[in-house]
């Protein structure tokens, strides 16, 4: 699925740190990319430093299939062609940083006089690697890392022309085979990456397309990581939507899922004796007769002492409220979108002229108007299973040194209905404890001032969303890797989500907190007991009593002599309650539960 390839070229300006950094980023990429469809083949083509390509690399690394100079293929020994990254590969790749400079660092540059064209060779090898799998069923991509915008610049004119021609031909052949080539250009501090020398032609970029290509001026390695992270996933839209603006005016938009919670992968049930996967079979059994059923044609709801039956068609007809995918209803000021109007992650919309020419222009015009007038659009999203109201918020492009941080477009936010909004703050039991005058305490100005001071003290100035890795997920991956490699030690994962204790202990912060505390709580701050409900008090009392009572019996003795059955059920329950076991069931069940608990 994923593959790396290093080829000779001039990278000396960035040096070894660059290559090792690419490796470590690629390594972290693997884990995430594995969640993606298995129908994706990627070759990372990395421009490596220009020294002699050392053929005496360790045995576990494999030379490229065609044995072409200047190209090095990194893979696990014994595996042919494209493999999906296994735990071992990831581990080994992790260590490549150390061995890389010593062993692999392909040390060929393209130097004048030489007929060796390593870029050509790299493309050739990459294409050979991607032979596997049909383009009809799989995505094939090449990601090319380089900082050399003019790979044949040092050569004399004739050779240069020749090499340019053959290399371009090679790239075109690959593209014709359905392989897409993506470029990750790296600029150097003194020079921007110039697409027009060579790569614009190679990637077939012209006019608008060239402008669309974002020449990322990557100067710092950190930025390159960010850039790479953006390219890990093939930019894949998951839907196109038609937004009907007025009768006869409908524009097309592509929808992208930019934010979706990442969860640990699905579990597969295995047979614990053989470790082979199990096949799950689902069967429907009639509860009345025990007969095996085929898929039930109808569903029912008990209502008014009847069973009201619905066919599938009826259910889908009920849900079909609107025939339009997205229907614009109007606009509102941004202040109407409250913080509690949210149900699930938003979806990003970007215009496309694929089916309807003119969509993009209308989209851009509306986008600008909405930004300027500070308004959002309300539309009805007529999905067949989950029709709902949505807010479309225009988002302006945000570019920082890291590159594009917020892409321009609209975010579709799924709005709740009144049925989905609850009002727990109005719940009556919140008021039961209040005095008869029915006043709710409010903060005084002084309290608010103190809180404001505190806020300015504990200010996260450059807080960016998504700066924390998910510790649970990281731990999950670490555990899996350790188990897969049969390592004894499970690596500790640093939890970045914990508060900054050190920062909080700074005197300024501590003072601000103390002042706020004094203002609100006076001098009688104590953490105090929470109000405990009657029921839980009762429960607690019962548990305490059970512990006391339970101590009066010699349970071991009773169990050994089989005298448990002489006790009454309430007596048996003392033991169960004291040991926090379930107290339900018949006497025999209670006794056996006690015995199991005592391991007898």
């Amino acid at each position, binding site marked *: 699925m994923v593959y790396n390839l290093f080829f000779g070229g001039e990278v000396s300006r960035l040096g070894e740190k660059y290559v090792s950094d690419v490796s470590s980023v690629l390594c972290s990429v693997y884990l995430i990319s594995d969640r993606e469809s298995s129908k994706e083949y990627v070759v990372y083509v990395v421009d490596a430093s220009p020294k002699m390509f050392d053929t005496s690399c360790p045995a576990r690394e494999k030379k490229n299939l065609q044995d072409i100079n200047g190209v090095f293929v990194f893979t696990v020994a014994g595996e042919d062609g494209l493999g999906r990254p296994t735990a071992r590969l990831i581990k080994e790749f992790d260590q490549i940083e150390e061995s890389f400079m010593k062993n692999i660092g392909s040390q060929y540059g393209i130097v004048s006089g030489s007929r060796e064209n390593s870029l050509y060779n790299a493309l050739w090898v990459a294409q050979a690697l991607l032979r596997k799998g049909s383009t009809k069923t799989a995505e094939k991509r090449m990601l090319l890392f380089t900082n050399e915008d003019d790979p044949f610049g040092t050569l004399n004119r004739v050779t240069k022309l020749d090499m340019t021609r053959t290399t371009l031909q090679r790239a075109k052949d690959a593209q014709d085979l359905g392989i897409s080539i993506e470029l990750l250009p790296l600029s150097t501090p003194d020079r921007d990456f110039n697409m027009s020398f060579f790569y614009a032609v190679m990637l077939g970029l012209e006019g608008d397309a060239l402008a669309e290509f974002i020449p990322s001026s990557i100067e710092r390695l950190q930025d390159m990581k960010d850039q790479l992270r953006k390219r890990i996933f093939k930019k894949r839209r998951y*839907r196109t939507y038609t937004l009907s*603006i007025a009768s006869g005016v409908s524009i097309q938009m592509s929808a992208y899922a930019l934010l979706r919670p990442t969860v640990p992968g699905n579990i597969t049930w295995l047979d614990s004796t053989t470790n082979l996967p199990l096949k799950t079979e689902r069967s429907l059994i009639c509860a009345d007769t025990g007969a095996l059923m085929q898929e039930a044609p109808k569903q029912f709801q008990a209502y008014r002492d009847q069973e009201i039956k619905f066919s599938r068609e009826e259910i889908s007809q009920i849900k079909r409220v609107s025939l339009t995918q997205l229907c614009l209803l109007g606009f509102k000021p941004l202040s109407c979108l409250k913080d509690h109007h949210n*149900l699930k992650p938003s979806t990003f919309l970007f215009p496309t002229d694929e089916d*309807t020419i003119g969509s993009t222009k209308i989209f851009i015009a509306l986008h600008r108007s909405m930004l300027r007038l500070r308004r959002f659009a309300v539309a009805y999203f007529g999905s067949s*299973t989950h029709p709902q109201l949505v807010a479309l918020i225009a988002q302006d*492009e945000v570019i920082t040194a890291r590159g594009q941080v917020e892409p321009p477009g609209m975010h579709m936010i799924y709005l709740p209905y009144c049925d989905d909004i609850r009002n727990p703050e109005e719940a009556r039991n919140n008021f039961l404890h209040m005095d008869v005058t029915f006043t709710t305490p409010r903060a005084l100005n002084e309290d608010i001032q103190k809180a404001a001071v*505190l806020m300015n003290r504990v200010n996260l100035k450059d807080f960016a969303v998504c700066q924390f890795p998910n510790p649970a997920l990281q*731990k999950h991956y670490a555990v899996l890797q350790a188990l897969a490699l049969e390592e004894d030690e499970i690596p500790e994962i640093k939890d970045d989500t914990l508060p900054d204790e050190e920062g909080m202990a700074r005197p300024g912060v501590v003072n601000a907190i103390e002042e706020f505390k004094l203002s609100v709580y006076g001098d009688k701050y104590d953490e105090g007991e929470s109000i405990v409900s009657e029921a839980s008090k009762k429960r607690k009392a019962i548990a305490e009593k059970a512990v006391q009572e339970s101590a009066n019996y010699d349970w071991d003795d009773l169990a050994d002599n089989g005298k448990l059955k002489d006790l009454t059920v309430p007596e048996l329950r003392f033991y169960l309650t004291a040991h926090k076991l379930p107290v339900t069931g018949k006497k025999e069940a209670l006794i056996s539960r006690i015995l199991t608990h005592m391991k007898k």
Partner: protein
Amino acid sequence: MARNKESLVLLLDVGPKMHGVLPQVEKVCAMLLEKKLIYNKYDEVGIVLFGTAETNNELTKEVGGYENIVVLRSIKVVDGDLVDVLDQIPRGTVPGDFLDAIIVGMDMLIKKYGPTNKGKKRLCLITNALSRLRDPYEGTKEDQVSTIAQQMTEQAIKLECVVVRGKLSGDADKNVMDENDKLLELFTKKTWAKTLYVESATSLLGALRTRSIAPVTIFRGDLEVSSALKIKVWVYKKTSEEKFPTLKKYSDKAPATDKFATHEIKVDFEYRSINDPETVVPPEQRIKGYRYGPEVVPVSSDAWEAVKFKPEKSVKLLGFTDAKNILRHYYMKDVNIFIAEPGKREAVTAISALARAMKELNKVAIVRCVWRQGQSGVVIGVLTPNVSVKDSVKPDSLYFNVLPFMEDVREFQFPSFKNLPTFQPTEEQQAAADNLVMMLDLAPPAKEENLKPDLTPNPVLERFYHFLELKAKDPDAAVPPLDEALKKISEPDAELLSQNKSVIDEFRRCFELKENSTKKKSTRSVKEKPSGSDDEKEAAEDHNVGKTLMTTDDNTAVKAEISDEKPSSAVANNSSLIVEKIENITPVQDFEAMLSRRDSSDWITKAIKGMRSKILELLEDSFKGSNYDKAVECLVALRKGCVLEQEPKQFNDYLQYLCRFCKDHGLNDFYELLDLKGMTLITKSEAVDRFTSNLLSLCSDVADEAARSFLVTKEPKVE
């Protein structure tokens, strides 16, 4: 079960000025009762009407007065009759006095339960509050309200008022209106009362909480600002989707005589080993495996328990940051609310101070939350202020939403709009867009905000419960059309459109849209599958729907075509209202649009007839098979339509006719194409749940006959 039992008295104004909105009132109350019948069967409900010509209530008998108030139903456990009562509530003739009605309702609750009953007691008042209230015998109206409010607080009775205003109520005496509004406001200050003003039928339907869910905390404990300052808070859900009811699978296997049959279907899962599919692997022999690359790593639950990430239950503050750093679209989930622990004055003040300071400085708080001990992960979220308006008894609180982790983001790059020179709108176009955004205003100043989420009901649920009630009376009832008031949720408001007709026309004139003819039908776009979690399911379901409509035939060619044409037909459906006959360009879409017309059943016949002649026309006009593909497409659509509309005979007869036609006219190649595409007659099995027995036999007859005379190679499956 009775712990959360609620007793509710509906106080409905039926005075003359209310007649216009009574259909909606009936609807929303009926929905409330229908939901109670399913989810809160033991709740008790009474109905009081005021503004009636007659008078019938206990207070009038006991102390006199309280005229024009009728107790339609005294407080009883909900039952079906109650829903029927609301089908048509009697219209009144005199302006109603809502204060009297509140007293009557309160009196009913007190008499029924007395002070000992601790259950929830609620009064729901729906009125326009436009008529002058009668003067009390002593003191002022304000005094009267205070007395009532005190009584309600003592009895723990809640009051919810829905006041119908704006264009729904018509002209009104401003003085009376202001006086009444003041009185209602007094309630909200003095006791647990809430007043909602609605100005449209749509929001009237959404104004009443039709399903009461007891709020349950998801966290009780400390909001740790630092180790030195911990504020006691309770966390609740603020939004949580009310799901479409989960229906049970129906089994018809039980004999009709069995009165106690549950008709339920149990779903059973069995795990079989791959090598030996005969044996079932018992649960204790199963072990969980996690994918790691191509490998599956087996991990026992005990081992997993020992090594997994185990955070401590806590809510810790990481710091504050400017609100602009957290863009709205980063909110990942439904919303929670942080409320200071009730009864802790200082905690309430602390939260209030934080919320107000946050609002003032335009800041938000970043917190790290582990709600429960033993929870498998942590969440990072943002707290935003929710400051109560002056005088309300609601405490200040904080809203919480989950923010994404690094792993949750896909940073795709998109071209900058500035870099798309050919797509830049001209000044004129930009002005037209500005105008549209400005004028198509859903929140006009000094008027009610349209489609405010807090007041907009879910049309799907509304329709489901309505349909449920209809089906209870008539099992064969058809799915009801959407209520007019609910259509405003899914379609643009006609009034708003006509007001801004010139703006919209100008917009339409300025921009040109045309279909992209150069677009090649790429195989990619068809294949592109959703990658998002929810929508993936959605797509799968879509697909399933498509499948169930199709024949069980193995030949996938027809299936593929159906799914291919889906998007285009969806687009065409937009204009379904105007399709009256099948045109040459988009016959399939026209056909579907005609079928989906519900204004007359004639359209189905017309559509089928039209389609049949269209196919013949296509064949006749075909030159060397040039129209064949289109004809097959049409035939597939016709078949699908006939299955859906329960007209299998129409299709089967026609297909047979078509075969004869082909033979007679030497169109054998078309005939072969049909065979190749796996075209079959509509079989009994496809239509089985739709037909009564006599039709069934008819169907199978057709199929048998077909087996002999039609498409010898493909036999329709007859069960």
